[in-house]
Each structure stands twice: as structure tokens, then as C-alpha cells.
């Protein structure tokens, strides 16, 4: 009776039995499972965002998601999809939160000293449609992706362009808006 087909990959690196043992509270199995998963996650995150210091956090947070959800995973065979989604959710959280510690760029002191006319631009008062009308569709995509959380390097890959070309589009967009709204 043939049990294991090896054409392609070592399926039993995360075999159902190991997952079941981990789910049933076998600490050694859980440790082994997370250890093997850690290698996959590290490889994944390095491939997506490079060897950044944040990689350790992303791996740990994803392992935590898997760890916390393991008990409710009904089918041990579905660990791959479960772990994949956990990694993708974590990556999206990373993109979304990437700006949070850097909001100081939006200098609070400078804002408070702005004139009433200028402060009308602050926060939600900005008319996006008016601003978008000034931009090329390409520049708009770059800016949207940037605010979504992607780095210029990612954006360049996504739009099949270069990082410097993407940055140049942003500078041109700024100049356009500057000219349009200063008059």
C-alpha cells in the first residue's frame, strides 16, 4: 500500500498526525509544528519584504495566530491554507500599520501655526476628487498604493516600472497640486 508520494514535496513535514497531536495538547508536537512552520514563514516574509528587522515580529505574530487558532482548526489537512491566510493577514496588517509610528511627518506644530485658509486643507477637509482630477491615472495608482502601505519598491514591481520612476511621479503630482492650489 502506497502511503506517501514524494513527487514534489515532503508532505509529512506538517502531516495530519502531527497537527492532531498538537491540537490535543501534545507540547512536543506543537513545538515541532511551530518550529517547522517558523522556517516557512521566515522564508515567506523575507521574500516579500526583505531581510528587515520587522521579520521576527511578523513571524512571531503569525505563529501566534496559528497557535491561537490551532484548536479550532477542524481539519488538520487544512493547516497549509490556515497558515497561508494567517501570513497574508499579518502582511496586510504590517502594510496598514506601517505609517502609524511615523505620523510625526504630519508636523503638529506646523499645522497649528497654519492660516485658517491653509487649515481648511487639513484632515478630512481635503477634496480628494479635486486632487485626483489633477493627477494622471498612473500617478493616482502610485499614490493610492503608497497610502495603502506598499513601499515604492513594491509599487515599482506591481506596476512594472522602476522605483525612481515611481518616486518621480509622486514629485510631479506634488508640483501639480502645488501650482493648482497656490493660485
Amino acid at each position: 500500500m502506497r502511503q506517501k508520494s514524494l513527487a514534489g514535496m515532503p508532505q509529512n513535514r506538517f502531516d495530519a498526525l502531527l497537527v492532531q497531536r498538537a491540537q490535543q495538547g501534545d507540547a512536543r508536537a506543537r513545538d515541532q509544528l511551530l518550529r517547522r512552520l517558523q522556517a516557512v514563514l521566515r522564508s515567506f516574509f523575507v521574500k516579500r519584504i526583505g531581510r528587515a528587522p520587522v521579520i521576527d515580529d511578523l513571524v512571531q505574530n503569525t505563529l501566534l495566530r496559528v497557535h491561537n487558532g490551532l484548536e479550532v482548526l477542524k481539519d488538520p489537512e487544512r493547516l497549509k491554507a490556515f497558515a497561508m491566510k494567517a501570513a497574508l493577514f499579518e502582511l496586510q496588517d504590517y502594510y496598514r500599520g506601517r505609517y502609524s509610528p511615523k505620523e510625526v511627518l504630519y508636523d503638529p506644530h506646523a499645522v497649528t501655526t497654519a492660516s485658517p485658509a491653509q487649515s481648511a486643507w487639513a484632515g478630512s477637509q481635503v477634496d480628494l476628487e479635486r486632487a485626483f482630477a489633477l493627477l494622471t491615472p498612473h500617478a493616482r495608482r502610485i499614490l493610492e498604493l503608497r497610502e495603502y502601505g506598499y513601499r515604492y519598491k513594491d509599487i515599482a514591481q506591481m506596476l512594472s516600472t522602476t522605483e525612481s520612476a515611481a518616486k518621480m511621479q509622486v514629485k510631479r503630482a506634488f508640483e501639480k497640486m502645488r501650482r493648482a492650489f497656490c493660485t
Partner: protein
Amino acid sequence: MQDVLNLLLQDEPLTPVQRAALTKDPALRASVQRWLAFRATLRAHLDEALPERRIFVLHTLMEAGHADELTEAERTEVAASQGIMTRALEQYPALRDAADRIAEDRAVFMACWEQPVRIRRLTPTAWRIAAAVALIIGFGTVFALFFATNNAETPIAVRDGGLERVQLPDGSIVHLIEEGMLLYDAKDFARHVSVRGNAFFDIVHADAPFTVASPGAVITVLGTRFGIQSDDNSTMVVLESGRVSLAAEHALDQPVLLSPKEMSRVVRGNLPDAPAAVDLAQALHWTGYLFFDATPMFQVSRVLQDRFEVAIAVSEALKDEQVSGTFEPGDDIAYILTTLATTLDAVVERDESAGFIVR
């Protein structure tokens, strides 16, 4: 002006120079404020359009034909959010690009999943490359680390016959074996441990060096795997992969450098012996690890039969094929055989009476 334009691209806070430049030019400052407000507004609107990126990921997986990877509950969630997703994608064209990227993320994850870990044919060239990338750090650092971490350490010990697997805060693994003791500062871990007795180390690579203090000796590494056997007066190190520096504690400036499959010994008060070549399987047998280095499959099967007390048959066509790899004490026979067979493009069959067959 160019500097100010560049600040539009940066993620970091304004530097004093940039801040001063903006202060001197009120018109430019106003433009930058508008620009930043525009970005903040766009971000807020994107967040409003896509309140849960988790749903966006699930929606994208569904759209890409991977509905089977979602649970029933997730599929229901996606269906309930269909209207929100459609509106967001219409309103912000770049979200189509983001969706493509998510689909690509999935493909990359799957490729990483399929990729075997810790098993590869290490050619002599690969060994040389592995050795070349390992870096030896200055001994001043070693000295400082050695003496800086003698306090607030967490002791972990095993008794005779015991085996304890310890994961250190940086992800490195230590297997303590038979009367081993490990000391490290868990609260403020600075990649330094002290060890007595026998232990096998699997050190994760990092910019900072990892140092091990053992009787009479100090070992410095970056990312590597090695075994230590020590008693009160001596330390013996056997290196499996990477590169390590071994020095007598009284003469840190006179280390020996070990390459893979070499060993050295330090007797307290003396300098380390010159590195000597070893057979890893024999020299590290005590660790419980299994080491195969261009080992013929027929020989591998014998080792595994002895270890797991199970019959293993290897087909004639594979018996002389050589495989390499390292397995931890906890790895089971099915995992080991499957992993090794993968490198040979072979299959493993399980027969209730005859055990495992590799062919």
C-alpha cells in the same frame, strides 16, 4: 527645493534642516501641509472603503479561484461583504493592483511551503560558501559579553539521561543532553549563554555574534550548528555547519577557527588544539541528531533501522545514491525518510509487515 521634494518620499520624521527650510518658506510649508493632508485623507478614505483587510484577502482568494482554501464561515463573510468590496474596487483602481499582489503573496507562500527545509545536497562548494559567509567578530565584544551577562541568568539543567530542548529568545535552539546546564539572561538576552556539560547548538543568524562560555573556553559564532562536550576542566567543540571561533578564556586573542566537520578541544589553562577533521555522525552521535553527509542510502537505512527499530528496504536503483541532511532528535522516521527521498525524487511506501520501502 529638491530636499523638500525628497521629504515627500520619506517615511521618517522631518530632520531639523528640513524643518528649518520649511520655516523659512511659508508658501512651501503650506504646500507641504496640503500635500500631507491630502495623503492623510486618502489613507483615511482607503481605510474607510476597506475596513477589514482580512476580508479583502479572503475576497481576493475567492476571486482568484481558491475558494476551497476558505472555511465555510469565511465564505459567508466574503459573500456578506461583496457590496463593500465591489464599491472599494471601483472607487480606488489601485486596489486591483493590491489584489494582484495578494494573489502573488499567496503563490509565494505556497512555494515556501513546498520548499524542503534543512535538507540539501551540500557540495564542497556550498560548504565553502557557507563557511565564507560566517563572520568572526572582534574579541573585545566577546570579552564584554562574557562578563556582562553573569547576572540575572536563567538556569536550565538536565540530569543524567535527560534531554531538554531550549529555545532562546533570539530563536536559537539548544539541546541539553545528559547532565547539561545552560545559563542565560532571558530578560535581557544579548546572544550570550554559559554552558556546562553536553549541548548541541543551532544558532540563528543575526548581525550580533552569539557567544558561548564553557569551562576554560569561549566560542563565538553568527549562525551555525555545533556540539559542545565539557567537564570542569575542558571543552570540546565539534562543528556541523557555519564557522566558529574557539578561544581559551585566558587568551581570547589566540583563537582557532573551525570549519564544518572539524573539532578542537581546550583544556583549562591551555590554548585550543589545532582543528582536526571528524566524521560528524560519530563525533556528534551523543547529541541524538542524525547527520548524513553524502551518505549512501543503504547506509542511511541501516542507521535508521537501528535508531527506530523498524525495517527499511531501499530499492537496488537507490541504494548507492548519496544524500545529505541533518535531523533533530524529535524528528520521526516517516518525516526523515520522506525528506531524504524527496532529494532523490523517490517515493516511500509503508507496508504493515515489511516496514518502509524507499524506491
